[in-house]
């Protein structure tokens, strides 16, 4: 059973992502509509993967990644960051801050499915 | 086009309308008066959770109104988007009227009836009249001062 945190300020975007992933084996989801909510959720619950949009109100996705990696127990939490075209400069910063994978919109359903499946293979799950 | 028609009586005369325009036929137990509506509108009636305006065909056809009777019926018809009820003296029969038996009425009759009668056909040995539902339910164009829900007093005492 994999518990995934989907973070994006657009409700419809979150729905689209969850729709893609629901069909995979044993997924459950929590949602956050801002980086701050995401940090709060992560501090209070346990997740197996985080899908994180980089552009959000009040605190950017990069900062969220930095915050997560700053916690010992979350060092190995898989984080997929998502941004839009034209923001490729964020790629270095995101990966440098400790993001696991980096995706740009638009992407097709099979891309996000493949990324998530790869990260949730037993060897990459949080202990 | 089916040949089935509903036949009903207004006064002593028989009238026909296509069965497919008839939604329901109910007995008449009174109507809610709508102030300011045309004189041939009896009022509103509730039928199967719909509120339907009802036209008194006796008044519409120029007859004096009748005392309430058990035989009275409200025939609820659908005319394009509108749902309207027709109050008639009785309605019991559904008849087949083959197309070749339907004829236009004499001109004097269609003129006198303001276009209400659009055709005639023999039914059971008598002449029944097919009516133009659109015209019959109205409202008639150019109703001068029927704007407010009440009637203005427009006549000065002599």
């Amino acid at each position, binding site marked *: 059973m994999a518990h995934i945190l989907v973070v994006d300020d*657009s*409700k*419809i975007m979150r729905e689209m992502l969850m729709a893609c992933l629901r069909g995979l084996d044993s997924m459950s989801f929590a949602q956050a509509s801002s980086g701050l909510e995401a940090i709060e959720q992560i501090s209070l619950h346990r997740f197996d993967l985080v899908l994180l*949009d980089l552009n959000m109100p009040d605190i950017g996705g990069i900062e969220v990644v930095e915050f997560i990696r700053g916690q010992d127990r979350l060092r190995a939490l898989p984080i997929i960051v998502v941004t*839009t075209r034209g923001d490729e400069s964020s790629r270095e910063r995101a990966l440098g801050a400790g993001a696991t994978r980096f995706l740009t919109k638009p992407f097709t359903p099979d891309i996000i499915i493949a990324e998530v499946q790869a990260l949730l293979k037993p060897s990459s799950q949080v202990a | 086009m089916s040949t089935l028609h509903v036949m009903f009586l207004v006064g002593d005369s028989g009238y026909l309308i296509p069965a497919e325009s008839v939604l329901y036929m109910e007995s008449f137990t009174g109507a809610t008066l709508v102030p*300011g509506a045309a004189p041939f509108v009896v009022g509103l009636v509730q039928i199967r959770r719909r509120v339907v305006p009802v036209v008194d065909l006796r008044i519409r056809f120029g007859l004096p109104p009748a005392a309430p009777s058990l035989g009275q019926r409200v025939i609820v018809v659908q005319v394009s988007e509108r749902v*309207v009820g027709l109050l008639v003296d009785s309605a019991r029969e559904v008849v087949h009227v083959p197309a070749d038996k339907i004829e236009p009425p004499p001109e004097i009759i269609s003129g006198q009836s303001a276009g209400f009668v659009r055709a005639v056909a023999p039914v059971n040995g008598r002449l029944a009249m097919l009516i133009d539902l659109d015209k019959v339910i109205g409202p008639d164009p150019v109703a001068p001062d029927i704007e*407010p829900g*009440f009637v203005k007093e427009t006549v000065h005492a002599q």
Partner: protein
Amino acid sequence: MTGPVDFHDYVEGFLAEADEHLGSAGKHLIELDRAARGGQSHPRAVRELFRSLHTIKGLAAMVGVEPIVDVAHEMESLLRAADRAGGRLPAPAVDVLMQGIRAIEERVTQLARKQPVTPAPPKLVAALSALVASPPAGAGGAAPRFGLPAEVDAKLAASEREQIAQGIRGGRRVVLLEFVPAPDKAERGLNITAVRERLSALGELVKVVPRSVATAPGSLVFSLVLVTSAENQTLAQALESEPEAVVALTLDAPAAPDAPDDSDPVVEADDTPAHAHGYVRVDIARLDDALEKLSALVVTRFRLGRAVADLTARGADTRALDVIVGEVTRQLRDLRGAIMRARMMSLAEMLQRVPLLVRGLTRNTDKAVALSIQVGDAELDKGVAEQLFPALVHLIRNAVDHAIEPREERRQQGKPEEGQISIVCDSLSGTHLTLTVTDDGRGIDGERVARKARQPVPRTDEQLLELIAMPGLSTRDEASRISGRGMGVDIVKRTADSLGGSLSLQTSPGRGTSFTLRVPLSVTIVDTFSFVAGAQKFVAPVAMVEEIIVVDASRIAHAPAPDRGRPAPDRAAPEWAALVAPVAAMIERRGQAMPLVSLATLLRLPGRAASPDSGKALVVRLTGRHRGEPIAYGIDRVLGQQEVVIRPLEDPLVRRVGVTGATDLGDGQPTLVLDLVALGAALFSQARADS
């Protein structure tokens, strides 16, 4: 296995979110415009605009609408640069951004209508990127400091510093607060989102910084910076912490704004106004269905209530049943509330785009227009809003294009240079909405219009409205220009009519004009008084009735009524009342004379006609042009108060002014719903015509 997910299926959702973002983007642009004219920066608006566009861009990319991605991308770059420069935009930027918003709106509409989406306009794209390249005016200066802890201070962006500095300069406090999330707080709904909402209501939330604190339950503490005028006590309550924990900040370095840059806007773009989106209809159909089912429930509940009352009358112990019926009533009320809320939109929201529209209309003219919108928190049904909005847009366009005079002309007339246009929601009677658009422009000269149109000169405002609403008139350019009303009044009138409402007009040549749109809401459940008049049952909305009074027969002043007419010729049945009585008498109320009108006589009800002498009267206050005038309607007796489902009467045979619809009081017969305000207005108009 996953079924194939196609992101194109999410277009509807995209449209809904895009619409929201575009609406708030418009608002922020107005704020930015105002700030730019005053030579100020507006960091918060820039940031929020940036975010809206970024979101639209991302969504559009996923759903596959490239043209929108292109425009949004350029706008986003421009705004990112502005954000980095402390929230400053080059002055011509606001105009170009507005064009950008319009371009996106057009394409969203195309998408909603399943039309092909036009590619991004190249001139607009070029204009936007040119602005990104040019440095904004007045960037730079030393970064102000505030005495914040280093960890928080390090995270502040230039625009955020600017926001804090402006707050302090503006005489408000800037405080630092802390919120510690915990599982039990989250259970109660006190999470960071709730805290942010509460604090946003108390001031401007500038920054939230998460900090790792080992001793906290989740090892997490949020530090919040807020510009506010609220007391520490209030702030602490919002966070459930102590007032002592609130830390005030100070400003260490001033910064003066620079002189504004007055260059002209760069590019002409297509001037079409935004249209309401057709896709809202899908929502409405489902809600209509829900309402139908609810109305059936309401009727059933009445029947149940009466059945229980019958049982009680027969001596059964129905106490337990009564409690249950009460619960059902409450639950139905809640359900109704939920459905109505889903169907309603606030009038303010509907009018959100109007300031932008007016701004666009006055661009490149020598007219100045001040727009005032006073609609409070009035709400209306989405379906009605969809039809009403274009009608309103017509009225506003006409006011700006034709009624408001250029600055010079106004100066010469001794009017203030800035023209005034106001949109006021006059009253919400529960069943009707009255919207008045007023301008202080040229007014409409009936004589000139009549002459040009070769029609008889109108003698009243009603006749003038008929004249300018004549379909042929709007195509005659000269007459329409002189009429000050151009095209569209016939369309507005048709919209009002088709909604079952009315359009009225008041004008004063040289001084201004007022158009009033009155439409029944398709609200179907309304709180009403039921009563008997002329032996017939009626209901009227509670919201319409100011007071129910007892009429003292001996204190009625019967006024002379020399025009006694015969019984109206349209009542064929001889047994019906041929009573001819004057319609109105007078009574005194609180020192003033008020007309007392017998409803039974007014409506020519055939039942035992009650003279104005008997029992009770419903006092109603009029709206619109006879605003404030009271009328007392004499009735036989009051029956009760109840919520009813109103079915509008749509058939032309029974559509009458003064009758809103019909309802079922549980007795199987339709009961008419009276619009006492409209009846009163008609009475007044007739009185005016008669005297």
